[in-house]
C-alpha cells in the first residue's frame, strides 16, 4: 500500500455522507481481542511479539475479505507516515508510539483496520461515514467471525473476551459516534449534555480520543462499560441518546439563526474570510474556523462550498498531511505559513467568494 496515495483523499470518516451527516461525522466500533496461548503485549518479549505478529499477519492475509487488507509494519514506517495514519484515525497514538514488532492491516476504503500488538494483540476497527452504528457493527462482527475461524481467542465464559486492561473485558467493544456540535458549544449548553451522558456511563472525548481537546467542536461519544451488556445492548444505549443530541444541536442552530442572524452570519463570514486571506494559520485555529464554515454550509449561509471539501480541508491541514502534500518536513512556523497558503489556494479553486 502506498501511503502517499492516502493524502489525495479524505478517508471514509470524512466523506461527509451517510445518515445525519450534517451533525454526525462518523460512527466507529472497535473490538479488543487476544490470542489464548500468548502473554498480553505488555508482558510479551520482543521475540514473542514477533511470533504473534507473524502469526496474525499470515491469518489476516487469508481472511475472505473483498477487497483484501494490506499489512503495514509500523517500525518500518517513518514517523511522518505513522502520524499520517494517526491523523486518519487508522491507528492509535499508542500503536504509533509503542516499541517492538507491531503493525496494522488496512482496507483500501479505510473502513476496516486491524491493529496488531497494540495494548491487546488485536484491535479491530470499522468506521462509517455518518450515523451508521448498525452497519459498522454488522461489518466488524463479520470480520471478527472470520478471524475467529483462524485463531483461538482468549475467552472465558465468565468474563468474556479477555483483555490486558480490565476496563475492556467482556465484549471488548468500544462504539463511538463523532458529532459536530458548534451551536451547542457556542450557546454553552454542551455541559448539560455531557453531564447527562456521564450519568448513563457514556464517555465524551475530543477528536483524537482519550485526553485530546475537543477542537473544531467535534465530540466523540462512546460506551465505557464493556462487561455485563451485550453488543447490541451497548449499541442501543448509545442509539438512545444520539437522536436527542442531534435534535438539540439542530434546535440550537435554528434559534441562533432566528435570534441573532446577523451575529451568526458575521461569525461565519469572518471565519471564511480569515481562511481565505490569512498568511499564518495554526492547526487549532484552522479547526475552529473550518468548524464555523461547516456550520455556515449546513445553514445555507455559505453556498459556494460543499461539506466534502471542508472535510478534506480538516484532514489535509493536519501536520503530517500537510508535510506529505508538500513533500517535505516542516517545522511549526513553516507549517503555519504552508497551511495558510494551502487553505487560500484550495478555497480559491473551490470558487470562494466570501461576502
Amino acid at each position: 500500500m502506498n501511503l502517499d496515495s492516502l493524502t489525495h483523499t479524505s478517508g471514509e470518516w470524512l466523506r461527509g455522507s451517510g445518515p445525519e451527516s450534517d451533525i454526525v461525522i462518523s460512527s466507529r466500533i472497535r473490538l479488543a481481542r487476544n490470542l489464548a496461548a500468548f502473554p498480553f503485549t505488555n508482558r510479551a518479549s520482543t521475540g514473542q511479539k514477533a511470533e504473534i505478529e507473524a502469526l496474525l499477519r499470515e491469518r489476516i492475509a487469508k481472511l475472505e475479505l473483498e477487497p483484501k487488507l494490506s499489512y503495514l509494519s509500523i517500525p518500518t514506517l517513518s514517523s511522518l507516515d505513522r502520524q499520517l495514519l494517526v491523523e486518519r484515525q487508522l491507528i492509535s497514538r499508542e500503536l504509533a508510539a509503542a516499541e517492538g514488532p507491531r503493525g496494522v492491516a488496512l482496507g483500501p476504503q479505510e473502513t476496516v483496520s486491524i491493529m496488531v500488538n497494540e495494548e491487546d494483540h488485536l484491535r479491530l476497527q470499522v468506521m462509517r461515514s455518518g450515523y451508521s452504528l448498525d452497519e459498522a457493527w454488522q461489518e466488524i462482527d463479520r470480520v471478527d467471525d472470520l478471524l475467529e475461524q483462524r485463531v483461538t481467542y482468549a475467552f472465558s465464559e465468565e468474563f468474556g473476551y479477555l483483555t490486558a486492561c480490565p476496563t475492556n473485558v467482556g465484549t471488548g467493544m468500544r462504539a463511538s459516534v463523532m458529532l459536530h456540535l458548534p451551536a451547542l458549544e457556542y450557546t454553552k449548553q454542551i455541559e448539560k449534555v455531557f453531564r447527562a451522558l456521564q450519568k448513563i456511563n457514556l464517555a465524551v472525548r475530543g477528536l483524537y480520543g482519550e485526553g485530546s481537546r475537543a477542537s473544531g467542536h467535534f465530540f466523540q461519544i462512546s460506551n465505557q462499560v464493556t462487561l455485563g451488556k451485550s453488543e447490541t445492548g451497548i449499541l442501543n444505549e448509545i442509539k438512545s441518546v444520539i437522536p436527542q443530541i442531534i435534535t438539540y444541536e439542530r434546535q440550537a442552530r435554528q434559534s441562533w439563526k432566528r435570534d441573532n442572524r446577523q451575529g451568526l452570519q458575521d461569525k461565519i463570514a469572518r471565519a471564511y474570510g480569515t481562511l481565505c486571506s490569512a498568511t499564518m494559520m495554526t492547526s487549532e485555529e484552522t479547526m475552529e474556523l473550518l468548524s464555523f464554515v461547516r456550520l455556515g454550509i449546513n445553514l445555507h449561509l455559505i453556498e459556494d462550498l460543499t461539506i466534502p471539501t471542508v472535510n478534506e480541508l480538516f484532514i489535509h491541514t493536519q501536520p503530517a498531511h500537510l508535510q506529505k502534500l508538500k513533500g517535505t518536513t516542516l517545522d511549526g512556523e513553516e507549517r503555519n505559513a504552508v497551511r495558510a497558503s494551502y487553505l487560500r489556494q484550495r478555497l480559491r479553486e473551490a470558487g470562494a467568494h466570501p461576502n
Partner: protein
Amino acid sequence: MKCQFCSNPATVHLTDIVDSHKKELHLCQSCAEQHQLVTKQELNLPAILQNLIGQHLGPQTDELARLTCPACGIKYMEFRAQGRLGCPHDYVVFRSGLAPLLQRIHRANHHVGKFPQHSVLAPEQQAELVELRHRLQSAIDREAYEEAARLRDLLRRKGCHG
C-alpha cells in the same frame, strides 16, 4: 510516639503513599525486626511495602499482594501498579481481586454478549500454553537451547496454532 504493635516507644517511622493515601507505620525496634522490616540495622524494603499495602488494602488483599501468576510471572501488585494484566490466565489467578474491581468499573461481573463460535480453550489449557511459552522464553534468555527446542516441540504437539 508509641509503637503501633506493642506500645513501647516507636523508633522506626515509615511513611508511604498508596493510591494517593498517606500511610504511616510507627514501630519499636523489636517489633520492626519481628515483622522483618528491619534486618541487621538495614531496611527491608519489600517487606515494608508489603506491610503498608496490607494495612491499606486489608488482610484479604495482603494475601492477594503475594500472588504471582504461574503462567506469565506477573505479580498482583505489578498489575495494580501498571493497570495491565500479563496474560489471559491472570483472570483466574487474580480472580478474588479482579471480581470487585470489575464490579466497580462495569457494575457487573459476568459476560453477556458474543461467544466465539469455534474453538475456545479451557482455562487450564490457556494457562498451560502461556506457561510453556513463558518457560520457552526464559530458556532462550538463558541460552538453554536444548530445553528451548524441547519446549518448542511440546508447544507444537499441543496443537497450538495461536
